[in-house]
């Protein structure tokens, strides 16, 4: 069961220029889905379409199994969001900002101190938001998104403006909400490293196209598949000739020789071959691409 499902979602701001091209996003219920992509990849446009902030041009959007076009208000009742910069009224206090949304959601007033406590702003209820730092505004925006006890949280780069400690706290909070309250979370970021410790599923978007979608395990698998044996010798050109006769996939990469991942016995054999040909081996190691490199590779290709 998917909490969010988009089918053939495309969007353009100017004729002939697709900002989104046939996006088929599937966010499983109960997951923390990391929506990754460099700046300008189409993340925010996708999220704005999912929230109904942009008029849909092509494709379908289903949330909680219901069509967004036909059930917008009912869907929004069970959803909390934070898109880009915080949406808060500077002339009002933190509690007043929450109170005016409490009126709309008609949730208990007791939720106001609860959510402020949850995001680490328990003593700021009567402070004007204009006096808040960006990090505090970001936390208050999360409190706003949590006010109605949503089943789904959509967060667009929520760690913007947070210090490293704040990022860790935010990560822990989101994990706790997901585990304890079974809230599905769709979180966008342009940094894989920032969310890889948080997410269970990943979608990678670039230039409006969804390049990868799957579990984090799938991505890690991809990482392992892309690991290779790297070596360097006193004569890499001759070493390459020798190795290519055994492993045709061997190639030169950034001043080193690269081979596909090999078993331990095969690595020992490679070493033996090089030594028998009077070559001096300076470096011989399995190098694994980190997830960030995989992400960059997907984006580059």
């Amino acid at each position: 069961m998917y909490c969010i499902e988009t089918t053939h979602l495309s969007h353009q701001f100017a004729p002939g220029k697709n900002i989104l091209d046939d996006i088929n996003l599937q966010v499983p219920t109960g997951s923390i889905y990391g929506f990754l992509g460099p700046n300008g990849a189409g993340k925010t446009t996708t999220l704005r379409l999912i929230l109904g902030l942009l008029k849909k041009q092509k494709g379908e959007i289903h949330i909680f199994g219901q069509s967004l076009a036909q059930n917008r208000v009912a869907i929004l009742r069970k959803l909390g969001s934070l898109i880009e910069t915080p949406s808060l009224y500077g002339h009002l206090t933190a509690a007043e900002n929450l109170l005016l949304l409490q009126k709309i959601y008609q949730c208990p007033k007791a939720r106001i101190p609860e959510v402020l406590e949850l995001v680490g702003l328990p003593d700021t209820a009567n402070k004007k938001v204009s006096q808040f730092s960006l990090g505090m505004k970001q936390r208050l925006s999360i409190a706003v998104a949590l006010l109605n006890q949503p089943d789904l949280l959509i967060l667009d780069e929520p760690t913007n403006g947070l210090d490293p400690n704040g990022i860790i706290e935010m990560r822990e909070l989101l994990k706790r909400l997901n585990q304890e309250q079974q809230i599905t979370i769709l979180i966008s970021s342009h940094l894989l490293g920032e969310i890889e410790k948080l997410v269970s599923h990943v979608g990678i978007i670039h230039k409006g196209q969804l390049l990868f979608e799957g579990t984090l395990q799938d991505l890690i698998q991809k990482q392992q598949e892309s690991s290779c044996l790297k070596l360097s010798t006193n004569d890499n050109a001759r070493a390459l000739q020798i190795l290519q006769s055994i492993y045709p996939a061997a190639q030169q990469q950034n001043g080193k020789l690269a081979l596909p991942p090999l078993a331990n016995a095969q690595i020992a054999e490679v070493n033996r071959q090089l030594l028998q040909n009077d070559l001096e081996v300076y470096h011989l190691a399995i190098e694994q691409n980190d997830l960030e490199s995989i992400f960059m590779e997907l984006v580059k290709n």
Partner: protein
Amino acid sequence: MNATLFYSIQSEWMKTKRSAAFWLVLLGGFFTPGILCLIYMVYIEKVAPAYSEPKFWIKWYLNGWESMAYLLLPMGIVLATSLIAQLEYKNNAWKQVLTTPQSLSTVFIAKYTVVLLMMFQLFVLFTIGMYFAGALPAWYYGHVPYPKGPFPWRTILQMSTSFYITSLPILALQYFLSIYFKNFMVSLGVGILMVTAAITALSWRYVYLVPYSYGGIHFMQLQGRMRFKSNILDIHYLALIYFFGFTLLSYVLYLTKKEKG
């Protein structure tokens, strides 16, 4: 009125608390009464005979409307309406409002209702202000008599309602400009331009076609100074037609806007 709309209006009303629009309405309502009161207090000997006139309150109230009808009220509406709608743009809050469980119509109507209520508030404050500003010199100086007869509430209410109706076209068009255009200068610029044009047009034969001039026309009619007469409809009907027309246009364009928030 359904519950969702009621809560939405409550929520929109709360947003105006301590906002620039709130202070503008508060100060705007008491500005003219304050100035008139000050003048009367300073020149009490000259104006004291007016207190003995039988229609003191009506004349006093019209005195207040002289500055309000042409300039202060239209400018106040231009500014207050722009400021209320701009609360969302200034705070990047449209996307928050439009992702709450309310229909787009509810959001539009709730905000519009708050603008109408704020203008109503301005009228109430102005009337209360005029009463106290008129009564204060009499209370303060023992030799100045308190105006004879009861305060003519009914007539004042009728006059206020008339002025309220003549202001509706300005409010409707300014509301549209403020919620449709992100740039505050569009609504403000058009507003200032239209108010200036309306004042200039008061001596024009077809001034009845200029929706921003109805307050001034109504005032001149009450004073018996209006040279031209509308050969189409009474200005109150014209004001209502403009009001509903602008409201409808604004509603349709708001609903069909491609990018919201």
